[in-house]
């Protein structure tokens, strides 16, 4: 069921969605999406361009964020707009945490505007693979 307009309040936070990114996840995403860039499959190739090893697709992280929004909205298809900039790489083995907040509700259009982010801890420092991402969700 798509989330109801009456059940949404400005300032409310979405439940966080956490996941440790595995090599198998990244390969499954490459096969499902068609993005077979070697940066996401070969440690040797990734090291050759200055990375520590295989990284997740930016879109893997964004799809994880969309899953967080979809779970809150009750249906991934309720997302009518979404944008993100990829600001930090995510390595295999890293945990990513998706979150968000309701920024505005439009009762006429029956939509909610969300501010979204994905954070990750790397060697004790917080990185933001996605920050200040935006989405619009249709409400019932």
């Amino acid at each position: 069921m798509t989330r109801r307009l009456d059940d949404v309040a400005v300032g409310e936070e979405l439940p966080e969605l956490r996941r440790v990114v595995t090599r198998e996840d990244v390969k499954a995403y490459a096969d499902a999406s068609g993005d077979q860039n070697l940066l996401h499959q070969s440690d040797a190739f990734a090291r050759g361009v200055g990375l520590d090893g295989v990284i997740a697709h930016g879109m893997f992280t964004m799809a994880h964020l969309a899953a967080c929004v979809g779970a809150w909205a009750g249906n991934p298809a309720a997302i009518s707009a979404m944008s993100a900039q990829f600001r930090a790489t995510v390595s295999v083995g890293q945990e990513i945490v998706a979150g968000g907040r309701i920024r505005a509700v439009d009762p006429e259009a029956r939509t909610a505007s969300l501010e979204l982010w994905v954070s990750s801890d790397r060697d004790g420092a917080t990185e933001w693979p996605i920050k200040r991402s935006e989405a619009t969700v249709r409400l019932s």
Partner: protein
Amino acid sequence: MRAVNPEAEGTRYPDVEFFVDPVRVAAFRRIFDQADGVPPTFLTVAEFDVFPGVIADPAVGLDFSKVLHGGQEYELLRPVREGETLTVRARIDSIRIRAGTGFLAIAMDMFDEDGAPVARTRSTMIERAAT
């Protein structure tokens, strides 16, 4: 040395048909633990049907071995339906070079079988400067 060519801005590519394959949607959803619906980010599968044409376009001159995905936007005018076929119309929306780094934005408009617009996407590719 290859580098993205700003003069390719505005290039339009031939329409490509994209089948919203329920098997592929299910595989995509499974990775992200979703029960139903087509996630908006699934549209990137359609983008990958077009990117090879852009990457191989000598007028664009992109060096894909130096490319990172910089950003992504989706706008859906209605939910995408499993089993439908969309027509994907792509163009190079902008090309900028800053300090040797190239920023290439590819925009796509997607239409349904009745010709009605369904979705728009915009992908920004970053081509790192040669070292």
